[in-house]
């Protein structure tokens, strides 16, 4: 393993008495010391996302004394974020995540310079934003942005501290093409949208991004201070349900399209098209898939009230039925629908719904392939029903 490259020059900074008091537990740690602490102060880190991973990242990196932290997030704090995004509090609901995070950081450590980017990261702005930082940390929640961050880091020669979580599983690595493999060496192509089984049921254990985010912060500090062995060329697999940590080896792919010997990707591309999914809620990207016929919750209610012979098909997972239900709905989870065609009459109108309308559209496409024609996708899913038709139901 090569030595960690020197990313920052501590010669230009000094520590005040207040900073020496604040960082004393680092300063008496031989591996950090004054020199290491000055490196942290001289360093700049870009955090992409201030959500589940970004919360512990921003808080620990600020507390550790990173000189300059860039934050990229365009979102506002939602109640459903608070289960894991601990940088935001209940009083921050509705506030911009950047402002909320910046306030927490300023209170944790006023010595940190915060730079805010209230935009979705895109192929148009990524190189300009990333170029200003020594280390990039990927805390996003979607494939297009992950490939974008990877490619931009490779093109700029920056280390990318990667973390990802799903349900009870987490992954951690440092993708640094100058020294080892990049994200594309491991994942040359994204899973096609129709074959990501995970989209049937997302969700994440609230503390899981806390675990992975703090590990990312650890790797970033190691890279900057030049401590120990970085995760370059290794992938950590964490399974919270088994409480297992396993490490596998990653190798640089000589044929990697972006960091290989003969790269074919030499500038940023359209990552939503590459992945076939939108990167974020504000995206104007439309999946290149057949649109399905929609019906509003108001129309469904009116037809039910008029006594129409509608079949309501709920394709959510069983744990979601505990949260909310439309009375009389036939319940078959998305993954099981094709095994229960005998329960789905072809001669009746079927209104398919899920939480928000995305899984149900997938089910409709699958049923159309089976010859069904009388299918309607309930727009906005059961959450829209809860908001407009039956306020006794919770929105989740």
């Amino acid at each position, binding site marked *: 393993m090569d030595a960690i490259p020197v990313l920052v020059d501590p010669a230009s900074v000094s520590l005040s008495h207040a900073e020496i008091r604040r960082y004393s537990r680092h300063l008496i740690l031989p591996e950090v010391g004054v020199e290491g602490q000055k490196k942290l102060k001289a360093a700049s880190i870009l955090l992409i996302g201030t959500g589940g991973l970004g919360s512990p990242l921003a808080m620990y990196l600020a507390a550790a004394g990173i000189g300059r932290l860039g934050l990229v997030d365009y979102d506002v704090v939602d109640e459903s974020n608070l289960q894991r995004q601990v940088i935001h509090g209940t009083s921050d609901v509705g506030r911009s995540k950047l402002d909320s995070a910046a306030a927490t950081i300023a209170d944790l450590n006023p010595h940190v310079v915060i730079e805010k980017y209230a935009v979705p990261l895109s192929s148009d702005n990524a190189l300009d934003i990333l170029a200003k930082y020594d280390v990039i940390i990927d805390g996003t929640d979607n494939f297009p942005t992950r490939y974008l961050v990877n490619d931009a880091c490779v093109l700029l020669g920056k280390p990318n501290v990667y973390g990802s979580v799903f349900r009870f599983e987490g992954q951690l690595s440092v993708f640094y093409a100058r020294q080892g493999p990049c994200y594309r060496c491991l994942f040359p192509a994204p899973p096609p949208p129709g074959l990501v089984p995970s989209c049937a049921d997302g969700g994440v254990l609230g503390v899981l991004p806390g675990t992975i985010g703090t590990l990312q912060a650890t790797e970033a500090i190691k890279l900057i201070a030049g401590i120990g062995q970085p995760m370059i060329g290794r992938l950590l697999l964490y399974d919270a349900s088994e409480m297992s940590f396993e490490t596998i080896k990653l190798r640089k792919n000589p044929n990697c399209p972006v960091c290989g010997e003969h790269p074919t990707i030499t500038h940023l591309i359209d990552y939503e098209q590459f992945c076939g999914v939108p990167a974020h809620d504000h995206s104007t990207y439309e999946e290149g898939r057949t649109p399905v016929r929609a019906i509003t919750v108001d129309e469904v209610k009116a037809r039910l009230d008029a006594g129409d012979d509608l079949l309501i098909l709920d394709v959510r997972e069983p744990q979601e039925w505990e949260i909310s239900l439309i009375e009389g709905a036939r319940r078959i989870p998305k993954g099981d629908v094709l095994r229960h065609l005998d329960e789905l009459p072809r001669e009746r109108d079927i209104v398919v719904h899920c939480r*928000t309308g995305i899984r149900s559209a997938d089910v409709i496409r699958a049923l159309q392939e089976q010859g069904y024609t009388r299918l309607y996708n309930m727009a906005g899913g059961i959450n829209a029903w809860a908001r407009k038709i039956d306020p006794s139901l919770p929105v989740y």
Partner: protein
Amino acid sequence: MASIKLPTPLRPYAGNSAEIEVQGATVGEALASLVGQHPDLRAHLFDGEDLRSFVNVFVGEEDIRFLQDLDTPIQAGSRLRIIPAIAGGRPI
């Protein structure tokens, strides 16, 4: 007898099992044994006879792409695992 550890997203297609015992002398045979036991996994792992490009199979710590791909020999007790691409917990 070797074993294959499945990532969470694939477990629903294997009766919610995390680890499956498989037969075979190569990675290809082990995967055939896996999809033989759990046919619903086939479409998620294979495109015809080939592994899908986003499916990463490791034997122990090593990526089979840097060994002998599906011809990589395995022994009794070998631990295989499928590494998923995961992006985050965004609900839909």
